[in-house]
């Protein structure tokens, strides 16, 4: 497995975890505080395994923390979707739906990769993705088919994020495969599937939105303030 691909997977998971964790003590329900923390922990766990492995494959002595805390945004390889601000709960759920509808088939495929180490990581992450997909799909349906306000917010969220999903389906996971997961959820949620059109990208090449460097500034501040320290 090449380093860049591992970094893409690991950075997606890491940045998703960082954003999800921003919800701590702020969720609409206490049960959701627990659920979002769970999902954040899953993503963080996957990120740690993937970044550790990426560092080993790279062979320059960088561990998970060196990769997480000592790269700047131009070196991160995550898709743009995960770095976008959380927005309201509808935006967060739409992000998670779109992400897990990509991660689930991807990890499923990678679980039978010839690279045993990667296959093992993906095998674990796949089960978690299935839960993330279910959780976000349920909320998408509940909000889409809930009140007038929740329908409007959920539709706005889907519309706003839709363009960023093209970056997810530019590789191993085909657009058709991804749509086969997402479209039925939108339909059940009484939401309109947005038209395809604008397809922003660049994350895999390290050309991000203006949001990522702020996220990293906060995430990395303490680690960087104490070079070489152990924690």
């Amino acid at each position, binding site marked *: 497995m090449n380093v860049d691909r591992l970094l893409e997977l690991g950075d997606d998971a*890491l940045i998703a975890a*960082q954003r999800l*964790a*921003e919800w*701590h*003590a*702020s*969720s*609409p*329900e*206490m*049960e959701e*505080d*627990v659920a979002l*923390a*769970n999902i*954040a*922990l899953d993503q*963080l*766990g996957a*990120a*740690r395994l993937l*970044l550790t492995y990426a560092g080993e494959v790279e062979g320059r002595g960088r561990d*998970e*923390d060196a990769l*997480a*805390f000592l790269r700047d945004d131009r070196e991160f390889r995550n898709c743009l979707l995960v770095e976008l601000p959380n927005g*309201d*709960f509808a935006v967060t759920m739409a992000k998670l739906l779109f992400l897990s509808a990509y991660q689930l088939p991807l990890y499923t495929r990678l679980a039978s990769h010839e690279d045993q180490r990667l296959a093992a990581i993906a095998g674990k992450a796949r089960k978690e993705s299935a839960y993330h997909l279910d959780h976000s799909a349920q909320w998408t*349906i*509940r*909000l889409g*088919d*809930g*009140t007038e*306000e*929740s329908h409007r*917010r959920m539709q706005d969220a889907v519309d706003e994020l839709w363009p960023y999903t093209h970056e997810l389906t530019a590789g191993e996971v085909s657009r058709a495969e991804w749509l086969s997961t997402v479209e039925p959820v939108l339909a059940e949620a009484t939401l309109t599937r947005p038209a395809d059109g604008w397809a922003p990208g660049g994350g895999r090449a390290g050309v991000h939105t203006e949001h990522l460097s702020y996220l990293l500034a*906060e*995430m990395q*501040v*303490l*680690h960087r303030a*104490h070079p*070489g*320290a*152990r*924690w």
Partner: protein
Amino acid sequence: HGDAAYFDAVIQADQKVEPRDWMPDSYRKTLIRQIAQHAHSEIIGMQPEGNWISRAPTLKRKAILLAKVQDEAGHGLYLYAAAETLGVSRDELVDLLLAGRQKYSSIFNYPTLTWADVGAIGWLVDGAAIVNQVPLCRCSYGPYARAMIRICKEESFHQRQGFEILHTLSHGTEAQRAMAQDAIDRWWYPSLAMFGPPDADSTHSEQSMAWKIKRFSNDELRQRFVDMCVQQAGVLGLTLPDPDLRWNEERQAHDYTQPDYDELMRVIKGDGPCNRQRMAHRRRAHDEGTWVREAAAAYAKKRAADV
């Protein structure tokens, strides 16, 4: 009255009172107040520690802290459920919190200024909570006692993690060591104050003791905590910020300086450094979540109608 006699006998025999049993109204009210305050403390307590999740210095520490804050949400949920067995709903209790009519532990009204504060909260605040809570595992009200058993197990895990954070810092760089000492200096007295006012001034204690809700006095528990911390501070290689702290051979316990109870009263009354911030955060989260809860309810209603 047969019910009252049965209740008294159960208490006397160190058995458990269960939700369906008759109990004195004031017993029920005392428990609701105490369990709710405890639940609220778990929920509000997510904020000061949660403040460092996004900035945790390693991914491992981030995961541990996130899991800890998640546990607190879970503890809040058990405790609200325990309170609900007494005939009050979680929504009512949350409303009382948001209206400022029920309290949460005053310790969470202090700010977390550095990463070491996460360690200090784990070691001192969770440590004090455990000293308070271990006796509650034998509390006379069954659902509360059982919730406390589970919570105490997790809390001691958290306390060890806090200790470990401080241990690593105190054996790290000069700056890390200073950060750890600074955190202990700021959290020590507020932690002592967690045990409440001195016995002489304590209002609810006597009746709670008789009902076996409370088993030890505030001062007894505080002493136990001090003695425990002195030993552990030695292992950490850090100093407790009390020049008068010393072993008293006669009492077989440490003499120590009392916390500033006037400050404690001010913080309880609402004038701690972060009371307004914590409550504003909780209210904002609640208000911003209203549309989501309404949508979930509307959806559930539609589905129920489908059946």
